[in-house]
């Protein structure tokens, strides 16, 4: 299973675009990428979930872990997501109250 991970910079904000299915098999790659970005000093990260087809609790856990790590550096991890089926997973678990969720990458980096 492929997990696409593409990093772009937007005026000091790092956008990580994720593509494919985030599950117990692929989530470790997402975690590694986040750890790598933080260790490179990227403390403002936007994770773009628009091209994600599937996200499970392992993926949620990695995002929560990333947010925690960035907060400890006074940074932030926010999300881009408008897909109903992905948003639903955040809603059920109450994580819409934990993450800032944007409608687009433009909105996320404009902030």
């Amino acid at each position: 299973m492929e997990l696409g991970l593409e990093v772009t910079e937007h005026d000091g904000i790092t956008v990580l675009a994720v593509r494919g299915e985030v599950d117990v098999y692929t989530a470790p790659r997402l975690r590694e990428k986040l750890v790598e970005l933080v260790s490179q000093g990227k403390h403002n990260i936007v994770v773009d979930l628009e091209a994600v087809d599937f996200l499970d609790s392992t993926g949620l856990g990695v995002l929560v872990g990333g947010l925690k790590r960035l907060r400890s550096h006074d940074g932030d991890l926010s999300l881009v997501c408008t897909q109903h089926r992905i948003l639903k997973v955040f809603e059920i678990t109450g994580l819409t109250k934990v993450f800032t969720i944007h409608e687009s990458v433009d909105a996320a980096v404009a902030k």
Partner: protein
Amino acid sequence: MSGADQGPVIELEIPARAEYVGLARLVVSSLATARRALADERIDDLKLAVSEACTNAIEAHAGAERQERVTVRWSEGDDRLLVQIDDRGPGFDPGQLPEHPPVTDPERLNFERGLGIPLIRTLVDEVDFNPSDSGTSVRLTMFCGPADDELSS
């Protein structure tokens, strides 16, 4: 259990390894789509619940032999779809899982795990956890309309 197990039964046995959870999702969503009695959103719900249960089954096998397998069993009743996930892990008590702090509590960020079972409970219409010494059996039920004529004939 009325209405269950009268229809076709499909079984998938996978190695207890993370890379095969996607196959379980693929099979279940293909079967649910073919049944044509479940809305797309409910198919997504079932797919996620099956994925969570398979993930737990595989994690319960961690350290077990490589050839140990997880079974996903699909069956259909007149008014329901049933997916049963069986593992050979140590079992657990689903009534004794730790509670998460409320989302407004900063402590919430210390909980990267424990989201799977709450998700399963919300996504499917019924869930039964049957742990035993020889493993855990999780039964997920989705109520739905009768099977498409063409398929049930």
